[in-house]
Structure formats: C-alpha cells, structure tokens
C-alpha cells in the first residue's frame, strides 16, 4: 500500500460526520438522540476538563489490563501444561472444555454472589473471558508444532527442555500472540458487561449513566473512547510482538 493510502478509509466516516453536522445545524434533524459531532466534542471536552473522563478511562483500563494479565497468564500456563503432558491433558482438558460451554456472562450472578459487586467479581469475569481463547490458542498451537522440526532438535542434541524452549516455544509464538489479541478484545467486551452490572466509575458507568439520564452524547463519547482504547491496546500488543515475529513477515511468500 502506498504511503497515505489509508486516508481513503476516512472518506465514509468523515463524510457521514459532516453530513450529519450540517443536517442538524440546518434544522433538518433533531439531533437529540443522535447528537452531531460538534456536540460530542463539547461533551468530551467538558468531561476531560472536569477530570471525570480520566477517572473513567483509568478505572476501565486498570480492570481490563489486570483481568487480561490474570486470564492470559492462566490460559498460557494451563495451555502449556496440557500441551506438554498428555496426562495433565486427560485430567484437566475435559473440565476446561465443559466450563467453556457456559457462556461467560452467565457467571455474573454467581461471581457477584461469591465475590461481591466490587472489583473482584469484575476482574474474575474479565479474566475468564480472556482465559479461554488464550488457553485454546496455545494448546492447539503446541499440539500442531511440526514434528519434523522437533526431530531436527533431537538430531542436534537438544534435551526435552531445550526442544520446548528452542523449537516449540518459537513455533507457538505467532498463534499465542494472535490468541492474546483475541483475548484482549474479549477483555474489552467483558469490561463493559462488568461495568454495566454496577460500577461507580469506568466507561461502562458512563454508558449506563448516559442511558439513565437520556444523554446520548455521553453514551457516544464512551463508545468512541472504547474504540480508541481497544485499538491502541491492540496496537501496543502488535508493536511489542513485532520484534519476535519478524521472521514471519509475509512480504515474500513462496509457493
């Protein structure tokens, strides 16, 4: 893609925003349920000025990142354990698969009952949502590592640990990172669910508050900020993983 070609992708959203702004200003549309862009800027600016926006963003991001860290660590460790040991696999995987069949949101009432309505239950929900894609991703990646490359390790004298570190791990890396990205996306999904079930701060709270107050503008501001935060977090994850995935860059694909 040529430099700057991405601008094309802006045509539709920017065009719609301009058309909507003009329509509302000209009195062709009411704009109460769907405020024009200028209104959203004002709302966002006011929220930022009062420091409220920062509080919400920090609260939400802290939940997502902590929940993500817990879920991703648990998923990675259990996935590695079950990928390394057939015995652990037989013992643990059926239970994990059974739990996976339960839609994660269905845990909410039980988490609240067990852990209260404050942070712990929220983190538990987010961690649970992140856990499954990471666990499944790393497990299936470990199980599909090319046996031929493992044999290379054996011929050149690697121990079992050596093979795990120098062959299995790098081979699994791309899938692992892809599963972390999926997990992070789900983390954002579940933070909304967690904050909608009751919170005094966070972007989810802003959503709920906007609904109760009939303020479409704060709802939309919260939604847009969710999108921006999600995109930035994913971008950071991709940037962090780039050095270790350089070998995989798909610029030159051979048949």
């Amino acid at each position, binding site marked *: 893609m040529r430099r700057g070609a991405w601008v094309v992708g802006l045509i539709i959203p920017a065009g719609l925003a301009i058309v909507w702004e003009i329509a509302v200003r000209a009195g062709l549309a009411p704009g109460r349920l769907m405020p024009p862009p200028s209104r959203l800027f004002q709302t966002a600016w006011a929220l930022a000025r009062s420091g409220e926006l920062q509080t919400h963003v920090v609260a939400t991001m802290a939940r997502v990142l902590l929940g993500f860290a817990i879920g991703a660590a648990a998923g990675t460790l259990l996935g590695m354990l079950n990928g390394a040991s057939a015995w652990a696999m037989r013992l643990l995987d059926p239970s994990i698969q059974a739990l996976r069949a339960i839609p994660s949101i269905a845990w909410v009432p039980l988490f609240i009952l067990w852990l209260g309505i404050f942070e712990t239950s929220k983190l538990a929900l987010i961690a649970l949502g992140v856990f499954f894609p990471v666990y499944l991703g790393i497990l299936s990646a470990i199980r599909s590592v090319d046996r*031929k*490359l493992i*044999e*290379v390790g*054996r*011929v*050149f*004298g*690697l121990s079992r640990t050596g093979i795990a570190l*120098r*062959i299995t791990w*790098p*081979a699994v*890396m791309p899938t692992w990172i892809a599963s972390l990205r999926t997990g992070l996306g789900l983390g954002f999904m579940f933070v909304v669910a967690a904050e909608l079930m009751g919170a005094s701060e966070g972007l989810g709270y802003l959503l709920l508050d906007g609904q109760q107050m009939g303020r479409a503008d704060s709802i939309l501001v919260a939604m847009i900020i969710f999108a921006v935060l999600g995109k930035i977090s994913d971008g950071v994850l991709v940037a962090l993983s780039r050095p270790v995935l*350089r*070998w*995989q860059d798909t610029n*030159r*694909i*051979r048949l």
Partner: protein
Amino acid sequence: MTQLVVKGIGKTYADGTEALRGVDIHVGTGEIVAILGGSGCGKTTLLRLIAGLDRASTGTIAVDGVALNGTHAAISAVFQEPRLLPWLTTEANIAFGGRRLAAAERQARAASLLARVGLAGHGARWPRELSGGQQQRIAIARALIGHPGVLLLDEPFSALDPFTRTSLHDLLLDLWRELRPTVVMVTHDIEEAVVLADRIVVMRPHPGRVQETLPVDLPRPRDRLAPAFDLTKRNVLRAINRSLAEAPSGHGAAAGGGVSPWV
C-alpha cells in the same frame, strides 16, 4: 574418524508393517555409502534408526564399537526437506547444528561455513527468503558444523533441478574431502550414487533387505561422461533389475525374469 556398523537390523512398525529385516551394513571411517532402492524399501526407516529418531525392533547399530541408544553426538543428518528453523536467520540455523561447540567457535564456524556453501552475505536473511537449493546448502552446513563423525543424508537433492543438484554434489564432495565424515546417503538417483559413493548398497523391498553391495572403483574427481562411469551405472542397473526380479509378485516384479522396462 568414525566407523558405523549396522548389524541384523529389523524394524516392524506398530501397525505391523515390516519395513526392514536383517540389514547388515558396515561403513568404514570416512567412507561414502549410497543406499539405493525403490520406494518403500525402508531406506528412510534405516536412516531414522541410525539417527536415533526411531528404535529398531531387532539388531544393533554401533559407532566405533559402541552400541547406540537414541541420538548420538557424532551423528548428524540432512533430511529430504531442508527443515530449517524459520525463526532463525540462515547463519543462526547453521550455528544451531553446533550446539555442542563453545559459543565463539560456533560463531566463527557458522560464518565460515556460510561462505563455504556459497552464501556469504546471506547470513542475516530468513530461511523463507532463500531458494530451495540455498536452503538445502544451509542444511548441509548445519549438519557439518559440529564435526560429525557420521553424516546421514536422506535424498537431500531429490527436490532440486539437475543444475542445482550437480553443483550440490560438488559442494558435498568438497566438504567431505575437507572434513572426512563417514557418509550414508539415501538416493533414488543412480547417477548421484555413482558420482558420490565409494560403495553402493542396493536394497529390495517387502521387507526391506540388502540385495547386494557394489564397490565404485572410479578415481575422484569423477567424470560423468567417462565410459567407466557408464559401465558402473550399468552394473548398478543390473543389480536393481535383480532386486526387482526377486521381489515377490504383486510388488513390481518384472515379468520374464528381470528385464526392467527402463534398461
């Protein structure tokens, strides 16, 4: 300086396929032995047993008189596909084969072998950026970096065009002259066997056995166009015909006592 003795080797796979029966091969120090035989006669199986990647059902394999049990530091291999590790640069792939060397020596040897296989300046590239022939050169360098006593090659050039294959024959022989490993090489290609080997072992299938062993008494470097070269090739072809003739019917036995259609 390593001697390889394969004695009474048999291999029956878990599904009951008898891939090898009673195989005896003695490879002297620094000798090149080519194993020739049709598809399914157990050539790959035999190499895998020597490499320690699978276990024999019967018999023993010994290096310098010591029976093997699993993989062995003195034995390295080039597979039919390059099998480079895609996340390591070409030079790091070569170095991977020298894990038992000290780090400094490993680096130095990786760099010199890279140049030796004609890829100086390509050390920082990724394997997928190399052609098949270049990848196989790296695989050869990786197999040789650790001073192996025994080098195993399983049809290493069969996927390459005749030009590349011929140049890799020369490369392999140059490296062999320099490092003198004992070489066991599996091939389908009669000419390749005659160019490279000191001895050719012709195998026969169902189950895989040694049909006969032919010495190649041609001076090196060998001239593919010399009449003596042709003569040797024809002797090998006769041995192959005999192996086909003796194969049980239904397994590609030539009708009428051993006149194969491709002579």
